[in-house]
């Protein structure tokens, strides 16, 4: 730890030059964040094409280890960062939410690629969720289809910046309130988000104005337009 490290030793106190090899004065936030930003453990969790680029990022040429992030953990219990690398489908989203709930705080989510960010080229598909952020909170979005390893590295550095900006006094996981788990969606006639239950009931009990219009115009669109 030397004074050339920008993340510590900038608390506004001057350390005499002869002591700089041994002494650093910093704030708790800074030292706490420095520890966290250089040891983010991503979850070994690949969904689709982007996972291949994620693996390439971890491999020798792009070498994620330079950022202290090479320890990919298959278990959510040991990981800090969920890289959602690929298309999120309705069949998979219950598992993703479950995995997210199982991750211990502090936890971050990085949406890698167009599909995870908003559905991407497959958005209109009947089994595709338009973006993982409809179910879990996302910290960083990385565009691309798939993003190159460089882009993913940039996204990870942005995450580090976000970690730097956090303060131990304000983060949610040291707060008094419990952090509620995200309700796990169910696979019914279509994907059911338990948070929408009331709305679903309300919409499906409407008198069949929708089916009459169904062949020509899409039912939901017609309703929204009215």
């Amino acid at each position, binding site marked *: 730890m030397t004074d050339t490290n920008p993340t510590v030793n900038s608390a506004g106190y001057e350390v005499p030059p002869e002591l700089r090899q041994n002494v650093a004065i910093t704030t708790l936030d800074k030292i706490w964040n420095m520890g966290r930003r250089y040891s983010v453990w991503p979850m070994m969790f690949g*969904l689709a094409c982007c996972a291949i680029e994620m693996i390439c990022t971890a491999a020798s040429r792009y070498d994620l280890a330079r950022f202290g992030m090479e320890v990919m953990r298959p278990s959510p219990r040991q990981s800090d960062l969920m890289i959602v690398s690929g298309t999120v489908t309705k069949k998979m989203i219950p598992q993703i939410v479950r995995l997210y709930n199982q991750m211990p705080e502090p936890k971050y989510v990085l949406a890698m690629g167009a599909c995870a960010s908003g559905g991407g080229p497959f958005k209109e598909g*009947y089994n595709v969720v338009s973006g993982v952020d409809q179910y879990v909170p996302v910290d960083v979005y990385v565009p691309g289809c798939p993003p190159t390893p460089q882009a993913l590295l940039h996204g990870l550095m942005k995450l580090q910046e976000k970690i730097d900006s956090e303060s131990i006094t304000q983060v949610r996981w040291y707060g008094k309130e419990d952090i509620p788990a995200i309700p796990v969606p169910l696979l*019914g006639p279509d994907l059911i988000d338990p948070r929408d239950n009331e709305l679903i009931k309300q919409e*499906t009990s409407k008198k069949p104005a929708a089916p009459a219009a169904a062949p020509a115009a899409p039912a939901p669109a017609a309703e929204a337009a009215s």
Partner: protein
Amino acid sequence: MTEATTAAPVEKSELEKRFPDAVKADARPGYAGFLVDTSKLIEVATALRDEMGYDYLSSVTAVDYYSDAPNAENFIEVVYHFYKSTGGGALELKVQTPRENSTVPSLTPLYAGADFQEREAYDLYGVNFEGHPDQRRILMWEGFAGYPMRKDWKEAYFEEEVKPFKNRWPEGQVYRIEDRNPFNKNNAYPQGFDPTGFKETDDPKLYEVLERAAREYSEDIDTEQVVVNLGPQHPSTHGVFRMAVRLDGETIVALKPVMGYLHRNHEKIGERNTWTMNMPFTDRLDYLSSMSNNFGYALAVEKLMGDKAAPPERAEYIRVIMAELTRISNHLWAIGFLLNDLGAFFTPALYAIVERELILDIFEATTGSRMMCNYFRFGGVARDLPEGVLEKIKSLVTERLPRKIDELDIYLSENELVRSRSEGIGVITPEEAIAFSTAGPVLRASGVPYDVRRADPYSIYDRFKFDVTVRQHGDVYDRYMIRIDEMRQSLQILNQALKDLPGGEIMNGKNPYQVRVPAGESYGRVEGPKGELGFYIVSNGKGNPARYHVRAPSFINLTVLEKMCVGQKVADVVVNLGSIDIVLGEVDR
């Protein structure tokens, strides 16, 4: 135009003569093959398999002929493509069934490889296969409302039948489709559905089937069995794949693959897209080998378009060069990750990835993208090789790659641990390999020298000298070795192609914004790195495919997984799966 017309005409008449009442040639313009009476299908298929040598059922799929015009003749057609495992063209059978209560006899008892494909047709089209041993939904889940691939089924985000959508630029305005959905999500529910207290039905049904399968496996001692789910989040499943396994101690008693976690509706979207728009979507099927996918799709469409889309010489050579480079990069990856599954965590994979990166550099220089190349066009390729790339390919092919493949071979093939973990594991006999419609390295490792490049040559593969690799034991070790052999053969093809690469045009005519594809059907297939990759397309002469089906080798190769694993230890499941080399984008599509 289609392959069936080039198939031996003797058998054609033979089949019709043999079943004069049940079989008649498909006379619709642009179509080939035979229409078979539903009640006689089993009989005809048995004769095909046992007497005429069509022992390999390549593809089963359904097509929905639907129009909401009054008096339209609406029906669902199930299409079968048969091949001989000794080579040659296709024999195509079709069975028509009404859209209500569609029922077709299942071919699974005759051709075990029909299993998953029939389940897929049931899942997406609602065709009942009578006599299917395990007819459940495969890509969607039990309880999903409707059969999504039917033409009159509309998804929640439905805008228009075909692209390009009218509301987009230049006339229209772009809007967010979720804003027009009451839930702000890609969801729609049937009338009167009440979500309170809803229970899922998919998993209970799966466990029921698993228990039934376990009963067939009898042991002398009655022990307690455990169900273990490997996946969908599991480091060894190469993506989001799940295996429900029933264990007796360490021994696998029953195994059912569960897929669809990456089912992103290629085929439904593909029928909405224009012909050209589908090209980048094929990249995302088997995302490790996008060039091969492009190749298959381009071939299928070019077959329908005829001479006006025949690629010029230079384009043909570039296509072969790219496809073979793709094969090498795919096999490098497959070997690296098979070793991962064997327990050599990431070190062999790192060595393999380094070489793959060099090939990706070539792709990036040529096409602009590392993985999703979107390089082929109907009648050629999108861009010529840029300056310097040819030299790079040459030095890679003649100097670096042969040495590196030898290096992998030396360090891995004779390794005691690799051999003891993989020899004699997951053995598939040649008969089983053919019956289960396995393709590519899995088929050839079982002693069946079947390679589409040789058995039914496409593009300019008949000009090159190469061996069809084959190994005799059908175990994991042979499935690993066959990939090393194949990389060497690919290098041989590359050397010849690079030597003969002519100059000249790379496109037949101008690269059009829209292509016109005459009405008809075609089945184009290539030998992809994973096996036979086929595209079955039906055109009705409009700007969009009426049917766009992908015969995905990874998906069909998985049919044999249960056979490979039952009776073995749980640790070998992972290795068996790794040796099939699946890519989930292609399995689930």
